[in-house]
């Protein structure tokens, strides 16, 4: 059972190194991004998200649509409990897995094997859990003997294959993604696709930020359209994508 319940959630970023007045004037005309304002002490504040209220339940496959700076990434960070709302309440039940930056924590000087432990550890796996899955990860990544070489000797494709193989080993109840993960050459892509579909199937709630109409139509059963930090539309994929991308 997983549940995400947001009530009137706002996120304000204080910008300390900006000079309030002059910058405000200049930026207020920018079309993208959140809304700029200032707080009682005259600091510049970017309101990244404003008054979000929604509930996500088991089985929800949510697509986040919106222009750059509409608040998609901020919302994903709120969902992963990295940010706490500036006001309002965000209730999140269930353990969260994030596939937003699968290379986070990878050390190029360390070997592939060491990096499996590093990356796995950061994702919250214990050493014994990783040891148990080690062979599976190595086999999936198809690195062979390269797994004992430093990552810096890898091609970028190999690097991503390893990161992908470790990162998708977790089975979180709530899965957060920024665009669909697709790595490797043709053969690997197919395998990765299967692994991703399994992963998505096994999670209770999926939230994925995307700019792709096909992806949203294909994976999601609900779409939130964010604009300037607010929910502009919340509904089934067909209706919202038609409104967002134009019919």
């Amino acid at each position, binding site marked *: 059972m997983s549940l995400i319940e947001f009530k009137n959630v706002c996120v304000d970023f204080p910008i300390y190194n900006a000079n309030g007045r002059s910058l405000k004037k200049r930026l207020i005309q920018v079309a993208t991004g959140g809304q700029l304002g200032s707080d009682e002490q005259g600091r510049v504040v970017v309101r990244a998200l404003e008054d979000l209220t929604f509930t996500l339940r088991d089985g929800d496959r949510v697509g986040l649509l919106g222009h750059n700076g509409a608040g998609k990434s901020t919302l994903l*960070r709120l969902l992963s409990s990295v940010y706490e709302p500036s006001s309002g309440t965000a209730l999140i039940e269930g353990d969260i897995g994030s596939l937003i930056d699968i290379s986070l924590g990878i050390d190029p000087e360390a070997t592939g094997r060491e990096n499996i432990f590093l990356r796995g*550890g950061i994702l919250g796996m214990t050493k014994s859990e990783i040891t148990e899955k080690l062979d599976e990860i190595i086999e999936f990544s198809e690195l062979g003997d390269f797994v004992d070489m*430093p990552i810096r000797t890898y091609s970028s494709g190999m690097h991503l294959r390893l990161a992908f193989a470790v990162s998708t080993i977790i089975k979180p109840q709530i899965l957060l993604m920024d665009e669909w993960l697709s790595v490797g050459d043709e053969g690997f892509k197919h395998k990765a696709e299967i692994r991703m579909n399994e992963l998505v199937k096994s999670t209770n709630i999926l939230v994925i930020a995307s700019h792709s109409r096909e992806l949203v139509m294909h994976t999601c059963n609900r779409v939130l359209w964010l604009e300037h930090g607010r929910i502009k539309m919340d509904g089934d994929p067909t209706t919202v994508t038609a409104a967002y991308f134009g019919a």
Partner: protein
Amino acid sequence: MRNGSVGIAVSDIIAATRRYALVGMLGWQDVRQRYRRSALGPFWLTISMGVMIGTIGVVFGQIFNSPMQEFLPFLAIGMILWSFMSTVIGEGCTGFIAAEGIIKQLPIPLFAHIMRMIWRNILILGHNIVIFPLVLLAVGKPLTWLALISIPGFLLALLNLTWIALLLGVLCARYRDLPQIVASLLQVVFYLTPIMWMPSLLPQRAGLYLLDLNPAYHIMSVVRSPLIGELPTATNWWVSLGMAAIGWAVALVVYGRYKRRIAYWL
């Protein structure tokens, strides 16, 4: 509010200590990463520390006209401990800033980043401390049973360093000028604290200001004195204990209050 924020701080710290395996691994990784592809690895630190102690020992031993058997062990352990203390405080400033990538992606308890930094420096201290027995051997000064007292002394010093690092980590995430100020202050404290000079060289009146009013001296003494065959004074213990108690109280309140803001400040 006060109770609430202390509660937040304590629960974060407890959650962080549960992730000790991760902290341990990342701390090791930091040390290894720095010295990968070098033959001697972290022992380069030991060597450069040894060279510095040797040089300062010879020069200042001459200037102060101190007997080498007393001065060299005093200097060696002082320099080794000071390098640990000042690095923990200095890196405490960037404790959260340096972990920005992780903090903005994964909800790992924030105190874990401070623990990682301290663990990394304990490992480096472990490499540097090798110099001390060598110095003792070189000047023919024996290590007494008294040295065991430095273990609780070290734990007390660690307790103090941890709250300082935590507090500075929070403040520096918000005020980015602070790390520079702390760095210069550390430089000043280094000269004010008897590390390169022995307290016995001070005239009586100056001693009152430079020793009794210097918290760094007390913290240093509870670890250092037993190792050079002296007992730390009661004042040393009480000041260190008092600082730990008051310091943690302040750090917990500040940390609990601003913990949720740290991700926003980065």
